């Protein structure tokens, strides 16, 4: 055969691989592919909350059933927010497009989609700001980076602002301190004005608004659930815990995410709190009203954050407690740490938190009067108030995922690690550019952790998973610890897909495993009901 008889390489390679669009970003329309977007909010939930434009619709439809004057509503909404929030105007004006944030987003890293670069995500809204709110933009239009707000732009906003988990990793790298999560928050607020929101956010919000918790569980349902947990604790430890619920005059109110009441592995962490407080003989109470630490208002609008968060102080006042402990939740701590005082304060009816066990003053919580459980527990350990047997966790080889909000928004970096090091013997850190302030998001925060969005979640989860797999290979890690209820749900899916031998759990689950309680029977199983030791060795 002669060379010239051979088919050309192109003919043999008759596969036309994905070619990126040739249009610029401003003109590339959004493709709503199954698995990469969240289902829209159900009309019934919008009605409960009095939110705009309740209806049935789908992002995959051509017609989104928007109000006729949607553009006017959005632009008016932008105007109001530019006047009301200095930060928003600043973030619109100040970006010099240096690119420091560009490659820091887990969705960009996992997808390669340029509109997931934080700078470009913000630019989606900034281009409209330039076009309609700046003189230069009005004069120069596209040349000045301005862009008219069209229906395609609005659809793009919906796709990409519900593709940001508000984890704030990008903001760590911004030399100007632009908080891109706040741009997303405003973007979502604006979308809400015309009825564009997702059900995974709005349904918990509607439930919370009616019953105090995301799942819409009435008070007697909660009491049942908690008592089932104390039954499990009795089986494991032989100790019957009498749980204080809605106890007036208790010293401390305890608030934690409701995700931990129903969904494994969060339930084990919840049992951990119960065991710790019982062992200390703490004068505290659970509440069936402030039964939710999480606040999906944060993913809806500023007004909604305030509306939902109000119950915590209201309940503290009603019960007459002195201060509040908050459980292992993520975004709850962003709300408490950065918005609570302004929105729901001043909490002048509460006292500056002092640990009744050690006498330690939590001066950092002077304003909010809320102490994070790992602050409380690490202080107990530091003062030698807990009897711990770390060897009970010897089967577990753990690494720790800094949950975005507790790490970046609340600065809780050392406390969880201090607790972890004291309750177990096998702990290994993931690479340093993937933990602490630089921690990678689970890919499912800010309301995106729903099943229909699974493909997008797995893209966003990959940077975290790649670091996790590194310690799995190196140290045979089999447990991913975290302190966030969303993490406990979404990291479980992450591990199923990317690192199947790893289970997920909270810190206080392992604390309770290690906690030697007064009057307990010999422990043979951990909180999950699994044998403590290696069975083969026992034989």
């Amino acid at each position: 055969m002669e060379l010239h008889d051979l088919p050309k390489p192109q003919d043999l390679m008759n596969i036309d691989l994905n070619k990126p669009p040739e249009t610029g970003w401003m003109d590339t329309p959004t493709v709503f592919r199954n698995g990469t977007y969240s289902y829209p909010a159900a009309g019934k939930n919008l009605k409960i909350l009095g939110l705009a434009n309740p209806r049935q619709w789908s992002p995959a439809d051509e017609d989104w059933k928007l109000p006729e004057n949607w553009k006017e509503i959005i632009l008016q909404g932008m105007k109001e927010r530019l006047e009301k929030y200095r930060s928003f105007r600043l973030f619109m004006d100040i970006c010099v497009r240096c690119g420091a944030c560009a490659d820091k987003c887990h969705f960009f890293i996992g997808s390669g989609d340029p509109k997931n670069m934080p700078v470009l995500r913000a630019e989606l809204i900034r281009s409209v700001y330039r076009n309609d709110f700046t003189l230069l933009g009005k004069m120069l239009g596209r040349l000045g980076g301005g862009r008219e707000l069209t229906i395609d732009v609005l659809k793009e906003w919906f796709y990409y602002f519900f593709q940001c988990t508000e984890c704030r990793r990008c903001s760590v790298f911004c030399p100007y301190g632009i908080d891109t999560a706040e741009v997303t928050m405003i973007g979502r607020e604006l979308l809400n004005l015309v009825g564009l929101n997702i059900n995974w956010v709005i349904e918990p919000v509607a439930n919370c608004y009616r019953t105090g918790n995301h799942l819409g569980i009435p008070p007697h349902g909660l009491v049942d659930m908690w008592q089932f947990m104390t039954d499990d604790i009795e089986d494991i430890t032989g100790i019957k815990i009498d749980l204080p619920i809605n106890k007036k005059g208790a010293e401390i109110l305890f608030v934690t995410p409701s995700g931990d009441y129903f969904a494994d592995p969060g339930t084990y962490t919840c049992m951990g709190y119960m065991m710790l407080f019982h062992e200390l003989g703490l004068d505290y109470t659970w509440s069936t009203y402030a039964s939710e630490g999480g606040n999906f208002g944060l993913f809806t609008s500023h007004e909604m954050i305030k509306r939902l968060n109000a119950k915590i102080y209201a309940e503290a006042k009603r019960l007459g407690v002195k201060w509040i402990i908050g459980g292992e939740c993520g975004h709850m701590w962003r709300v408490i740490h950065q918005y609570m005082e302004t929105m729901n304060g001043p909490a002048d009816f509460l006292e500056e938190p002092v640990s009744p066990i050690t006498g330690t003053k939590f001066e950092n919580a002077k304003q909010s009067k809320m102490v994070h459980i790992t602050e409380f527990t690490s202080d107990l350990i530091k003062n030698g108030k807990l009897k711990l047997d770390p060897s009970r966790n010897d089967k577990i080889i753990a690494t720790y995922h800094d949950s975005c909000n507790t790490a970046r928004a609340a600065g809780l970096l050392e406390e969880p690690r201090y607790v972890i090091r004291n309750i177990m013997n096998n702990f290994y850190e993931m690479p340093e550019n993937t933990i602490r302030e630089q921690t990678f998001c689970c890919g499912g925060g800010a309301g995106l952790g729903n099943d229909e969005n699974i493909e997008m979640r797995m893209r966003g989860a990959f940077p975290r998973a790649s670091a996790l797999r590194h310690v799995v290979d190196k140290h045979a890690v089999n447990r991913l610890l975290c302190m966030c209820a969303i993490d406990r749900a979404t990291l479980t899916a992450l591990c199923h897909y990317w690192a199947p031998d790893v289970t997920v759990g909270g810190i206080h689950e392992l604390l309770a495993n290690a906690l030697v309680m007064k009057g307990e029977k010999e422990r043979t199983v951990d909180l999950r009901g699994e044998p403590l030791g290696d069975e083969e060795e026992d034989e």
Partner: protein
Amino acid sequence: MRDLILEKKKDIVKRWIELTIDTYPPEGGSFMKNQKNQFANPVGAAILNGAETLYKWIMSGDKDLSPDVVRRLDDVIRIRAVQQFSASDAVGFIFLLKRVIRETLLRDALKDKNDLQELFDIDSRIDSLALHAFNMYMKCREKLFEIRAMEIRNRTSRILERACMKYGAPHEW
């Protein structure tokens, strides 16, 4: 021809990686090519390490995929299975290697029948790798659906279990 292939290994692998990364939007692609830290750029790292290991297998006489080759191939496929690709685009990057080999070698190398035979051998090894990749792709997609089903089930399973316990109904399922 084999000598030439060995000699040009670096160029071939480099070009294969380039073409694979070109299946991403240019901004994403340039990041994947330039960021060297594997944890900051896990997709780029998987493609880079994958291409080298897979190329080595194709040029080897090994019949089966070693665990290392399986892992590297799985790394790339697992990522592409959740990205904005169709099934053929997700696994099709493997066929890009044929194009690279032809572009790099054809003119210089094909001197006699043996060379042609060798080229066909390489082709069929690439095809076989692509079939492996397709199996992996399907497993990944099945896993995604399994996770979705699991999440929906877990949302209510605990409540059902508790309710059944409370009202004395059997709760094994």
